[in-house]
């Protein structure tokens, strides 16, 4: 996965930017539609173990003639899976899924923490998935299973947990359908965050000063000798 992701990075920078700009514009436009309870108009049932929203076993996306392939993934979530990636607190066993267009995907989402987690895909066609999303929510220590069908176009979809700060602190991933449409930013293990802190030692200023003086006196000496 690592080699593949670095190869992809070389040609996909512009497309990544395009995706990001798209996201920003969507964010700006969408503020009029307000849903105070967070899930009106979706098919689901809230159970103590959690819920699966907009499950779809049979309805084909318009650009698919049939189901190309069946996948079954088990995603484990919890703080345990964040430990390998510095600077994250919440994690997933897998941050990237690659599937064929028009495939049917069964997700088993195991929550190994004692708090709620979600596995949520965004940007799916709204005529099949209200709000464009497929969503599994699991309360602590539980597991839920859900199935959905992806459209035929090559595209990279955002996968995340939408509890406050869970995406920012590690639970961000991507679902790559076919060739995808370029990596998203900030997917742990796949791509960098768009912004990155400095991580410089406290004595950096002295190092800079030292380097400056070194270069200055060195140049002066060289100049003199000529």
């Amino acid at each position: 996965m690592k080699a593949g992701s670095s190869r992809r990075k070389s040609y996909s920078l512009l497309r990544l930017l395009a995706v990001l700009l798209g996201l920003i514009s969507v964010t700006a436009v969408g503020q009029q539609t307000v849903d105070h309870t967070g899930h009106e108009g979706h098919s689901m049932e809230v159970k103590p173990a959690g819920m699966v929203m907009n499950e779809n076993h049979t309805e084909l996306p318009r650009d698919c003639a049939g189901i190309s392939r069946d996948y079954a993934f088990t995603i484990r979530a919890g703080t345990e899976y964040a430990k390998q990636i510095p600077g994250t607190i919440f994690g997933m066993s897998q941050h990237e899924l690659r599937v064929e267009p028009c495939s049917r995907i069964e997700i088993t989402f195991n929550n190994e923490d004692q708090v709620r987690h979600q596995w949520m895909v965004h940007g799916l066609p709204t005529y099949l998935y209200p709000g464009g999303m497929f969503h599994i929510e699991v309360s602590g220590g539980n597991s839920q299973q859900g199935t959905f069908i992806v459209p035929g176009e090559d595209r990279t979809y955002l996968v995340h947990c939408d509890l406050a700060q869970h995406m920012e602190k590690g639970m961000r991933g991507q679902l790559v359908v076919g060739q995808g449409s370029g990596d998203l930013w900030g997917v742990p293990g796949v791509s960098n965050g768009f912004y990155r802190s400095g991580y410089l030692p406290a004595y950096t200023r002295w190092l800079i000063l030292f380097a400056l003086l070194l270069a200055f006196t060195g140049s002066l000496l060289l100049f003199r000798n000529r």
Partner: protein
Amino acid sequence: MINRWLLALALLLAVLSWPPQWYPLSVRLKLTEVFGAAEFRPLPGSITNPDTTAEKFCPPDPEGWREKQLIEGLEIRNSAPCIPDNPFAVAAFVRGTNNIEQATLLKSGLTADAVEKGRDLDGDGDPDEIHIRLEVAELNGGSALSRDPVTRYSIAPGIEPGLWVFAPKLAGMAVENFESSQARRALRLPSPVIRVEQGDEIRITLENSHYMPHTLHLHGADHGFVDRTGEGNDGVPFTSEVPVMPGNARTYELQPRHAGTMFYHCHVQPHVHVMMGLQGLFIIEPNQPDNWLQTMNIGAGLVRWPSQSLREEFDHEYDLHFLDLDQQLSERIQQENDPRLITRSMHREYDITDSTPDFFTVNGRSFPYTFQESLVVGDRNERIRLHVVNGGAKGIALHTHGHKFSVTHRDGVVVPATAVAPQDVVWLATSQRVDLSLEMKNDGLHAYGPGIWPYHDHQYNGVTTDGIGPGGNISAIVYAEYLEKSGWPRTQGVSWNKFFTEAYYRREVPVWESYAPGLFSDTGIDGRFLLRIIGLALSAGILGALLLLVVVRRVSRR
């Protein structure tokens, strides 16, 4: 040769540009003797500020949540102000999320285990086994993907301080929908008011969904130092237990023997965590038959399903949670995304002993947003109960216009009848609670008659938002006849448009612009003076260059 011309030019420029008001006094007086006073040149005119579009004062209520309604067999009271609580969540909190229809649960926005209610242990017609679940949410936090805060929550127009809150266990997303970065309505400041009955077996599970360690401390509420299993139950890391780590949960237990208005808060690094918003009212109601309680009051304010004892004595019940915030603390979660860097910044670099509060909230908002949801609405001759806590770092001098209230309980304990007298300012120390009785009896003492009567902290920083007023924790007691159908009070006086703009709280709008246009506006620019200053700067630049040239030549000649 060129140098000499340049020198002459620079000196000429300097002389011509030198502003006359900067001449030495003796020179100015001499000149006056010869030429008289300078000719009148009008001061720069006023700038009329471009009209900034104001936000909607009173957002619509398409679901009809403000109305009185029957849900799960409960008559949920109406909520007069513009922004009401979700009545389905109110019903779910009363019945228990485990005891209601799936349709009600969906509309409540809560998970099935948010507030579970069990057996009636004393046989008096209401459940006495209560299991509450709390999560921890960050509002206006940072991100490695955007410079804007995420899970946004404005306390006033354009004011989005980073916040941590205990939150009811909500199903679904933290934001309104995928296209929005605004926090959903139930995810907000302050942490929800928790209401339980005296003698109930209460379990509160803290599900730490946040990226830092937290605990729950039940301030003033009767609880054991350890629970039945011997595990720490006081929430204090250095005396009772290791904090609840991210992704983990712990259940706290209590069976309070005394009723009263108490407090709950996180006790990990409290000078940071409590001041970030991890604090809420904890109200223990007296045991009464058939006393189904609204276990949580999201956003505090009006209690739409009051307890039995409240119904006997009062017409309305309101919870008021005052909290001040320090911008230099709250912005730290927005500056980094790595939890290690945030931890260092908040707990080691931030120094509360050098801090001053900047934002002042009541029920999680500052003026003018307070008028959308935390109005105390009543009518002639009604009696209103107010439960008040000051969760801020500074004291509060709570003052009511048009009314004198009585402090009947302090820190959850009844005040002796001989010590109860009407007053219009009550001092609340940090984390202190008072129960107030507000009588809308127009007798010139308890009340002066119908109107829109502000209530606020009378310490003057409290009525501002980072020093801009009106702001801060100003809200009002409003009589029903002064309320429009929409819930907005029929104010007289100045236009509120500027208060509903971000620009006003960015200090960009003159304070009296709306009713004295031009009189106290921003002024235009004195172009002539500006030109002179630029001329001086140019001549200084030329002179400096010439000086450098001379020095370099001298040095190279040696």
